[in-house]
């Protein structure tokens, strides 16, 4: 059984990057660009932070590529799930919006 099988990266540098990205995230919340742009920025920052943790703290960067594929599979499944459920989500959201308008329309009919 090997010990210290891979080199240790500069962990403090990763820590400062993660801290800086977290502060940046808190700043993005207040940007006046609208939910779509802010949301995209926040997702990108979160994925960047997650990648840093996986690559350096979990040493994925120093492991075999096959292991990286195993690690990425859950992300792919989650993204796939969002696309699979999206049509249903839109249908429900249209129905909900319709139901919200219905009380206003109802008195006009009477």
């Amino acid at each position: 059984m090997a010990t210290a099988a891979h080199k240790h990266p500069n962990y403090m540098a990763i820590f400062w990057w993660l801290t800086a990205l977290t502060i940046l995230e808190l700043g993005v919340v207040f940007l006046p660009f609208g939910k779509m742009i802010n949301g995209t920025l926040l997702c990108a920052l979160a994925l960047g932070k997650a990648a840093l943790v996986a690559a350096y703290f979990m040493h994925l960067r120093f492991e075999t590529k096959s292991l990286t594929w195993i690690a990425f599979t859950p992300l792919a499944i989650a993204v796939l799930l969002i696309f699979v459920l999206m049509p249903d989500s839109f249908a429900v959201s249209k129905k909900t919006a319709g139901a919200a308008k219905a009380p206003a329309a109802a008195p006009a009919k009477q």
Partner: protein
Amino acid sequence: MSAATHAGTHAVEPAETPLTPESWGKLGMWIFLAGDAVGFGTLLAGYGIMRASSADWPDPYEVLGINLTALMTFLLICSSVTMVKALEWLGKGDKRHAINYLLFTAAGGTIFVSLQAYEWTHLIHRGLHINGNPWGAALFGTSFFLVTGFHGLHVTGGVIYLLSMVRWILNRPDPAASYNAVEISGLYWHFVDLVWIMVFTFMYLL
């Protein structure tokens, strides 16, 4: 590491795994984490879909607040650093420093869970319940408690795991004999940190 080399000794891995040549245990942890990540991924994807299809989903940023959770995020990042430092010291053969850093990590996790309990209590007092809340869609509370609770349980399990690693190191005179087990426990702890990064963004900031 071949099976023949270690024939006759117990607690020896039978053959080298091509994915993680150091140990089968490491591969086992990665596969477990991948499965666990599917669970968290499904919860977060489900949360996103529920939110997108709801007409009266409350604004999490305004309802939940982010000051405390930003501090909790920073705390988990710090605990990840102490975890890698523990492994680094163990690699250098210094058991005392390794144990100290493991205890710092466990303390970080304990403070995290305590802050989460404080946050939950505060929100429950303000009216956020698992089946309803004063701000809008009832599923907001359901999903909030489900996702943060599931993560909190992981942190609690992680603290117990880390404390068991302290005992593991203490029971073995040779630091090298503990390296692999501590590295595997570190994978779990960093995963908990990684998941919180996603939970913080999706449930608090977006």
